[in-house]
């Protein structure tokens, strides 16, 4: 079966999720990946959306984090202050799933402004949403983002959500309880933080991909892991389920970059 780079990316993200994990899900690719996992290898995956829906089981992909299906199929629906204060903040959630407008070599996320300065940016992005606290508090964070030199930069123009800031001990210094971005999954492969430096390095590549191309689509001198993983292509089952899910959505443009929703 043929497949697109986006499908390979979504399938790869879904594979990271294990059954019974609790997963704080943003809208867009994260939501597609999390629901794909739930319909394939992780039927008991606990999906949590910032709209306050805990353990929701949508049979169609929501367009927004507040679609009725999320409330109607949830184990529990709580207020927005409660979802952030009682459920996200204490570090109860295993995985936080984020998109980004820009991402840098230390996994810092920008979803606020690109280019110019804050007052007069070239591009005004939607802003923070739930991303800063998801990035801070989840036991680990997975970023899903199409790769280009414009989005994968040496330093983000604006730190909306903290990855590793500038190195290994920054998170501890800031009192951030989670382990930060442990995986960045792109349309070309998978990046993971170097255990020593926390710099993102290429650890996985898709079938037919070229390291040279990935480096050319990265805004810093991307290092490659000694044991680079060859990622398996999507299975027929994965593609069938994913396409069925995506078909449930209304026609739309791509989700806004960086939407932590």
């Amino acid at each position, binding site marked *: 079966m043929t497949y697109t780079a986006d499908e390979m990316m979504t399938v790869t993200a879904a594979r990271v999720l294990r059954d019974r994990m609790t997963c704080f899900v943003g*809208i*867009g690719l994260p939501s597609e990946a999390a629901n794909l996992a739930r319909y394939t290898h992780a039927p008991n995956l606990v999906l949590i959306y*910032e*709209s*306050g*829906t805990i353990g929701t089981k949508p049979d169609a992909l*929501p*367009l*927004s*984090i*507040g*679609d*009725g299906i*999320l*409330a*109607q199929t949830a184990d529990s*629906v709580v*207020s*927005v*202050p409660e979802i*952030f*204060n009682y459920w*996200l*903040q204490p570090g109860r959630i295993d995985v936080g799933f984020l998109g980004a407008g820009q991402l840098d070599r230390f996994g810092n996320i920008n979803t*606020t402004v690109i280019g110019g300065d*804050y007052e007069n940016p070239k591009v*005004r992005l*939607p*802003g*923070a*949403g*739930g*991303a*800063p*606290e998801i990035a*801070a*508090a989840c036991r680990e964070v997975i970023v899903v983002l199409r790769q280009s030199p414009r989005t994968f930069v040496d330093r983000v123009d*604006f*730190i*909306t*959500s*903290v990855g590793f*800031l500038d190195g290994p001990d*920054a998170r501890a210094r*800031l*009192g*951030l*309880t989670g382990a930060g971005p442990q995986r960045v999954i792109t349309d070309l492969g998978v990046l993971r933080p170097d255990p020593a430096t926390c710099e993102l390095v290429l650890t996985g590549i898709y079938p037919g991909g070229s390291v040279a191309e990935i480096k050319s689509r990265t805004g810093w001198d991307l290092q490659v892991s000694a044991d680079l993983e060859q990622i398996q292509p999507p299975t027929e089952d994965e593609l069938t389920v994913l396409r069925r899910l995506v078909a449930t959505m*209304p*026609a*739309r*443009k*791509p*989700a*806004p970059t960086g*939407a*932590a*929703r």
Partner: protein
Amino acid sequence: MAEIVSLAEAITANVHDGDIVAMEGFTHLIPHAAGHELIRQRRRDLTLVRMTPDVIYDQVIGAGCARKLIFSWAGNPGVGSLHRFRDAVENGWPVPLEIEEHSHAGMANRYLAGASGLPFAILRGYRGTDLATHTAGVADIVCPFTGETLTAVAAIRPDVAVIHAQQADRLGNVQYWGITGVQKEAVLAATRSIVTVEEVVDVLDPRPGAVVLPSWAVTHVALVPGGAHPSYALDYSVRDNDFYVAWDAISRDRAGFLAWIDEHVLAEDSPAGSVS
């Protein structure tokens, strides 16, 4: 005791030029009809507060009602940008828009502080981000017991909060269910409050997951069936996802936006029950 009045009367009585106005509803129960009434009554210089400005504030901002926006995520959910919001921020059209942006957790806690009668709330947030340095109402605070540094956010105290609910009874008690968002905090943080409802019933039939606001905690209730459209009211309507997608084209240029507002908002006379 909340008085049941028309939407036009409620907006006239509670929202004045220059007020701080919070219209809440987290994707669900967004009080769009009340937003249209603000536009019809040509309010000016409002400070708008809302976690997700969304299409409702894209319309109010594009119509020139606002001078400032306090928010945490400004996009058209699942679709793209808010073109009227960006045009106001980037080009000052139709009037300049000052912005103050936070994270969702920060905004939720600012409402929580307001609802609690406290000048601030604490959370684990903003640390290490560039948000704090570009945003008012955020400060470090040290735990007097552990010495740990956390973040304080200043309370939000709107002059008026506006929300949409499924039901009110004839005494003005309000009930809404489904995704309940931050509306209770917004109403309790505000000096005055307006609740538009799908239905006025004799007796509120208790619903699972429902929030009930006692009449004495609400200023005015207005009957506006469908008043959340294109958002929705669970068990009364479904989210009009196609409208959110269509809004991208409608709002992309100024002329198209103004034509839409003329036809769908201003052409309406201020309705008690009708929906724009």
